[in-house]
């Protein structure tokens, strides 16, 4: 009994270790002396897209091209390249697609502002629907309708429903 718990713990420990190591593997290959530079490397690694496996970031991808681009990124950061220099290096070669966050420009306005426009349209529709139903509720009864209502209420009193 005791040994099975122990071996289970050992197994989960090993699995955890494998998981941690594989998660680190893509990044650890580059050594930085300055932690600020390492942070920049991580930041760009996560903001840039791998072009081979398009749903992975440069930091996550194991594609050969991603490794090569990480190497370029590493060198640029070690040489104190500015953010602008790094971004334009990547965009000049691969286009805006390499950025997870596309720049705000006329061709991307729909992408950036579309959701807000939809929210505003939704709010306008909601507002109008609510106002309409309230209007209906507020309408007064005509004399004819009032008479019918009185009759119904009277009948109700005389013959209570079971």
């Amino acid at each position, binding site marked *: 009994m005791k040994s099975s718990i122990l071996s289970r713990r050992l197994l989960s420990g090993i699995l955890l270790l494998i998981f941690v190591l594989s998660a680190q593997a893509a990044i650890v290959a580059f050594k930085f002396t300055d932690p600020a530079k390492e942070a920049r490397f991580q930041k760009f690694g996560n903001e840039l897209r791998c072009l081979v496996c398009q749903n992975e970031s440069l930091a996550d991808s194991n594609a*050969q*091209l991603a490794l*090569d681009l990480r190497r*370029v990124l590493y060198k640029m950061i070690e040489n104190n390249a500015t953010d602008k220099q790094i971004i334009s290096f990547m965009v000049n070669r691969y286009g805006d*697609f390499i950025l997870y966050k596309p720049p705000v420009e006329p061709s991307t306005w729909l992408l950036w502002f579309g959701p807000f426009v939809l929210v505003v349209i939704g709010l306008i529709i909601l507002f109008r629907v609510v106002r309409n139903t309230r209007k209906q509720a507020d309408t007064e009864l005509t004399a004819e309708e009032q008479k019918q209502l009185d009759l119904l209420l009277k009948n109700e009193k005389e013959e209570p429903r079971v």
Partner: protein
Amino acid sequence: MARFLIPLALFIALAVFLGIGLTKDPRLLPSPLINKQAPAFDLPRLFQPEQKISQKEFIGKVSIFNVWASWCGACRQEHPFMMSLSRKNEVTIFGLNYKDNRKDAQRWLADFGGNPYTAIAFDKSGRTGIDWGVYGVPETFIIDKKGRIRYKQVGPLYPQVWQEKLLPIIKKLQAE
């Protein structure tokens, strides 16, 4: 009536947009290098390692620059067409042997029908490939007489795409 027609119209519009999206290949990305000067490089040649080749080679004629590698499966598929192209002599064909091993690349050409290229730049590190925005071998660039990139094909060349897309552009550029 409008109560039903408006959501229906919205649904149809959405379906049409999504439908168009499905027909597009997400792997084909527009190259920012189109109409720009070919990125500079200075690489040894595949067959004459002591000789160099640079982007200056493109000046004065319309050429295609084909990125290939011996490890690339689609390149093998493309190779017979490249051979037929080189026999037709319609356009100068340069090659960029991308992230390859010199011996493997030479043997690959010998094994699969010959060498269609006028000259091949040997980019072992892949650094020139990065400057050219290469992300999916094979890729083919059309370069005009002034050494500017005018078109990029991602993926293998085959007769249909050549006739419909690349050849008209090359004809036009040759007439310029």
